[in-house]
């Protein structure tokens, strides 16, 4: 009698705890947000998006981010000034489960960073994402010029 009462109360409390958990949405694209931030000087996802691109062969999609210095290019079209920080984050693309006709970011393949110092000196760094496969060879000089020449997405 007493035991069953305790058990009853106990399960009731557990039920309360479980059901009172704040409703945290599962509609966050967590897989696409893992970018081993601890190795990076800043979180690229918090910077200003400057450009988007697709690589149809590799089935990847990428976003170019910049700090406020780099983001000036959106307004004046000028070259990236000294102090610019650029990130190119590349994802595998996946079918949008909610819209047949769209693709959205899946896991991160690579994160690339370019810092432009005084007198235009560039510093390139490369980071592997969770979906990186080792076969991918990145040549520093090629990547630098490729990233710097990505056309920014212009809006009126």
């Amino acid at each position: 009698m007493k035991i069953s009462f305790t058990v009853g109360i106990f399960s009731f409390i557990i039920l309360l705890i479980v059901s009172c958990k704040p409703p945290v949405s599962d509609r966050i694209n967590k897989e696409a947000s893992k970018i081993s931030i601890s190795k990076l000087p800043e979180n690229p996802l918090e910077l200003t998006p400057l450009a988007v691109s697709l690589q149809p062969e590799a089935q990847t999609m990428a976003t170019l981010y910049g700090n406020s210095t780099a983001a000036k290019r959106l307004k004046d079209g000028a070259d990236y000034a000294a102090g610019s920080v650029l990130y190119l984050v590349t994802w595998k693309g996946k079918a949008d489960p909610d819209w047949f006709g769209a693709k959205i970011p899946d896991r991160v393949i690579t994160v690339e960073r370019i810092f432009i110092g005084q007198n235009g000196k560039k510093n390139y760094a490369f980071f592997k994402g969770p979906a990186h496969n080792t076969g991918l060879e990145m040549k520093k000089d090629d990547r630098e010029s490729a990233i710097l020449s990505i056309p920014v997405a212009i809006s009126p």
Partner: protein
Amino acid sequence: MKLKFKIVLCILALVLLAQLIRPEEISLAKTPQAKALTGVPQKIAKILETSCFDCHSDQTQWRWFDRLTPVNFLVASHIRDGRKSLDFSHWDSLATPQRNAMLYFALNGILSKEMPLSSYTALHPAAKLNPEDIDLLKTYLLNNAVSKPADVENAEKATEKQAVQGVKKSPNGIAYLPDYRNWKAISTTERFDNGTIRIIFGNPVAVEAIRTGKINPWPDGTIFAKTAWKQQKAKDGSVYAGQFVQVEFMIKNAKQYAHTKGWGWARWKGENLLPYGKTVKFDTECISCHRPERNNDYVFTTPLAINDLNRK
């Protein structure tokens, strides 16, 4: 016993009398001549005709039980609302991209399990779609209605640009928000159905809501801006954002926008940022396509965890 009989008789009489009251649609209904969707294979057209045309075209086939009052009022309201959302009657006057957009819209209505209405398939079992039908539609669209990016025009060098001055308000009174390019990207999408590439921006309220995981419903003050650019192919095979197509906003205010599902909807098109929509209620089009997401506060995008997962 006798009383019971009288009551039954009375009800019967009422039901019969009620048959005189009928929705306007039914008196207008002629036997429709079968008009197929031109330009699509017969198999595809057939699927849509069988399952959707009763409510989404002017070719409704009224069955005898559909004609009975009060069922006919229900059917008529389905047709009215259905044709407001999607209407195949004007197919012949549409250009190919619009036809394709319509087919993608239709297929997504089916995939979201909203369509055809289950109350309808219960009485019209032939309208039920089987997985083979759906695969047929998917394959057709993937093979025939995927927009290819334009080849690179001589990559014009970005120049100092003038902000567009005096952007007009949207027909529902919403004013243009010029600052969204300083917001964060909550996602990006490739749309192969219409050959665009998109950034979905979230304002600081949206980003904070993502951080705390409180995004269903999104808090008042949340704003999304979604920009679309034409896909443009470069020499190296990559695809970039080309010509600017449009920017769309969703502005959350549960009270102010209660009549439009808690969101203010607005869209500006082209380099000149012309407000989209002919009437105040143009936004029923937005809501009708976002409706399958009604359990997610009408939002499609699954946002990136911008500053949560990656916190140092």
